[in-house]
C-alpha cells in the first residue's frame, strides 16, 4: 500500500498548483484556461493510454490533479471531463479517446447508475436518441455527452454530440455557480454506440472510480478551506487577541485538521487501490465517498462560520467552497447510497 506521493507526483502537484494559482472561481468557464490545461499541462490526456495519445498515468496522478482543481474551485467542466475520460478508458473508443486526449473534444457524463431516461431506435453502431435528462453536469460547456440509452435489446452506452441541432440545453440555476448544470432534451439525435450491450463490469468500474475522483476534488476543497481559515485566524483580531488564540477557534481548527489528515489518507489509499489493487477498490471507493464527502462539507461549513459575518458575504470566497462542498457531497447520489454500498461490501 502506498499512501505518500512519489517524487514525480509531487512535481506534477507543484506544476498544477502553480497553474491553479492563476485561475479564479469567479471567472466562470474560460476556454482559454482549458486550452492551456489541456495543451501545455496535457491534463486532458492524463489518464488516457499512450496508444491514444495520452500520458497513460493512473488514478494517483489524476487524484493529485483533481485535488488542486478542487482547492482552486476551478470553474468549468474539469471534473466532468475527468469522469468522461475514466468512462472512456473502460470502454476504449479510439476516436473519442484521441480527441479527448488532444483536447479537441470536451466530454461529460450522464449519471451511469440507475436506469436511463433516454431511448433509441436503431441497433447498429449509431442510435437515434430521444428523451430528457433533467440534470447533466457541465452539459452547457461540453461537446459530447456519454449516456446510457435504453434500446429494445437492453441498455447501450452512447456518445451524443451536444452541438447537434436536435439537442436543447437549458441551463439550470445550480447551488454551486462554479459547477454548471443543464437540462438536456434530445429530439432524435444521432449518437455513437460505444458499447451495446454495455459491459456491466466496465460501467460499474467507471462508477466506482467516479467516487475516487470526486473524493480527490473534495480533498482539495477541504485543504483550501482549512488553509484559508487558519490563515484568517492568524490575522483577525477580536477582543485584542488573534481569534486563532481562542480555544473555541483553535480546537475546532484542530478537529478540522484531523479530518483532513484522515481524508488525505483515504484518498491516497483509494487511488492506490485503483491503480494497484483492484480487489480493494470497491470498498476503498465507497469509503472515500462515505468519509470524505461528509468531512469536506463539515470543514467547508465550519470554515465559513469561523470567518464570522464576512464569510456570509457574496464578495468573500467562503460561500463558494461551502456550496461546492454541499454539491459534491450529493453529486453521486444521496450520501446514504455510499454507506449502503459499503455495508453490502462488508457483507453486513
Amino acid at each position, binding site marked *: 500500500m502506498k499512501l505518500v506521493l512519489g517524487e514525480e507526483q509531487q512535481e506534477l502537484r507543484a506544476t498544477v498548483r502553480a497553474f491553479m494559482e492563476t485561475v479564479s472561481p469567479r471567472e466562470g468557464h474560460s476556454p482559454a484556461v482549458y486550452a492551456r490545461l489541456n495543451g501545455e499541462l496535457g491534463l486532458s490526456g492524463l489518464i488516457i493510454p499512450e496508444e491514444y495519445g495520452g500520458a497513460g498515468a493512473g488514478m494517483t496522478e489524476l487524484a493529485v490533479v483533481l485535488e488542486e482543481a478542487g482547492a482552486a474551485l476551478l470553474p468549468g467542466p474539469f471534473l466532468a471531463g475527468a469522469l468522461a475520460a475514466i468512462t472512456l478508458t473502460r470502454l476504449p473508443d479510439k476516436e473519442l479517446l484521441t480527441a479527448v486526449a488532444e483536447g479537441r473534444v470536451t466530454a461529460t457524463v450522464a449519471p451511469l447508475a440507475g436506469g436511463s431516461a433516454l431511448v433509441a431506435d436503431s441497433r447498429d453502431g449509431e442510435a437515434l436518441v430521444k428523451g430528457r435528462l433533467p440534470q447533466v453536469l457541465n452539459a452547457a460547456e461540453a461537446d459530447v455527452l456519454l449516456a446510457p440509452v435504453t434500446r429494445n435489446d437492453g441498455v447501450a452506452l452512447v456518445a451524443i454530440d451536444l452541438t447537434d441541432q436536435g439537442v436543447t440545453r437549458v441551463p439550470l440555476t445550480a447551488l454551486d455557480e462554479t459547477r454548471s448544470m443543464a437540462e438536456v432534451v434530445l429530439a432524435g439525435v444521432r449518437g455513437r454506440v460505444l458499447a451495446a450491450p454495455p459491459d456491466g463490469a466496465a460501467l460499474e468500474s467507471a462508477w466506482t472510480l467516479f467516487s475516487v475522483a470526486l473524493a480527490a476534488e473534495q480533498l482539495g476543497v477541504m485543504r483550501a478551506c482549512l488553509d484559508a481559515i487558519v490563515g484568517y485566524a492568524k490575522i483577525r*483580531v477580536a477582543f*485584542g487577541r488573534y481569534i486563532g488564540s481562542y480555544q473555541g477557534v483553535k480546537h475546532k481548527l484542530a478537529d478540522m485538521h484531523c479530518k483532513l489528515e484522515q481524508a488525505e489518507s483515504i484518498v491516497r489509499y483509494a487511488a492506490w487501490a485503483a491503480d494497484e489493487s483492484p480487489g480493494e477498490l470497491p470498498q476503498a471507493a465507497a469509503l472515500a465517498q462515505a468519509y470524505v464527502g461528509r468531512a469536506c462539507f463539515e470543514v467547508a461549513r465550519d470554515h465559513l462560520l469561523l470567518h464570522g*459575518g464576512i464569510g456570509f458575504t*457574496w464578495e468573500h470566497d467562503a460561500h463558494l467552497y461551502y456550496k461546492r462542498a*454541499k454539491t459534491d457531497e450529493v453529486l453521486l447520489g444521496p450520501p446514504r447510497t455510499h454507506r449502503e454500498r459499503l455495508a453490502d461490501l462488508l457483507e453486513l
Partner: protein
Amino acid sequence: MNLDEYRSAARTWLAENAGRGDDAAQADAKEFMARLYDAGYSGITWPERWGGQGLTQAEERAFAAEARAYTLPTYIFSIGLGMCGPTLLDRGSDAQRERFIRPLLRGEEVWCQLFSEPGAGSDVASLQTRAVRDGDAWVVNGQKVWTSVAQVADWGLLLTRTDVEVPKHRGLTMFVVDMHHPGVTVRPLKDMTGRAHFNEVFFDDVTIPDAHRVGEVNDGWSVAVTTLLHERLSISAGVGMGGGVDWLSELREAVDTSDPYVRDQLVELHIRTRALSLFNQRLAQETRAGIFPGARGSAAKLLLAELTLFQADVAVSLVGPEALVDERLSHAVCLAPAMALGGGTNEIMRNIVGERVLNLPPEPRVDKTVPFKDLKVGTQG
C-alpha cells in the same frame, strides 16, 4: 376592557386590516403603520407621554398572539421599534423622545442601527468610526456594515469613537444621525444567497448636531449595551415564534420514508426541532411567571443556529442531487449559516452561556485596559 376583550378586539381589527402573505411595498407599510398606530396597536407598552399606549406586557402578548396568523408589513420598522426607540426611551433626552418617538410609532420615519464595522463584529467596542467635536456639532468619518434597512432609513443610531487615548469601552459616544445627510453613502451588501439583506454605510465628513448625542460623551458603550439588550430580547422573542419552514412535513412528501435510514434522519429532525420548541415554550412560560430568562435566551439562540444548519443539511442530503437545482432547498442551504452569524456567533453565545448562566470565570482580557490607539483591532497582516 379586560384582557379577553382586548384580545378579541385585536382579532377583529387584524381581520379587517391585516393582509395575509407577501410583504407589502414600502409606501403601503408606512400607511399600515399609521393605521396600526391610530388603532392603538403600535407601542402598546410605551409611555403615553411619548405616544405609546401605556399598557402592560399582557396586552402586548395578547396582540402578538393574534398577529401571529398574519404577515404584517412592519419589517422596515423592526429595528426602530425593537432597538432604537427603546434606547431613546431609556437613554435619550426628552427633546429627543419628543422629536423621534411618535413619528417612529406612526411609521413616518424608518430607523437603522449603525454599530458593527468590518473590523468590529463580535467585538463591537473595538470600532474605528471617528466622531470629532467641532463647536456645537460633531464630524463623523468611517464605515459601518451589516446595516439592515439602511437604504430606506431616515435616522440611524450611530456608535462612534470619540477618544482613542482611553481603553476601548471608554472612548465611545452614541448619536442619532440623519441618513439623508449628503456625506452618508449606503451601498447594498450582497450576501451568500445572492440577495442584499444588508448594507454597508460610509460616513464622509458627516456633521451631527450635539443635540443628537444620546447619553454623555464617551459613555456610548453603556448606551450601546442598552440597545444590544433590546436586540437580544427581540431576537429571543423571535426565537420563541419558531423557525418558519416545517421541514419534517416537507421532507416526508419528498423522500422515501420506507427507507429506515431516511426514517431515522427524519426522527432526528423531529427530535431536535421538538426539543428546542419545548425549551422555548418553557422559557416563555417562565417569563410569564415572572422568571426572566436572561442569558438563557442565548442557549436557545445557539440551539436555533445549530438546528437551522442541521435542517438544511439533512434536507439536501436526503433529497440528493436534485436538491442542487431546487430553488427552495438551495436557498435554505445558503441561508442556513445566517442564524449562526447574526446576533452573535455561536462562539459568542457559548461564552455568554458559560459566563452568565453557569458563572464560569472569564478569559484573561488584554483589551480592557490598553488605550485604544495601542490596541490590536480588526484584521492585521
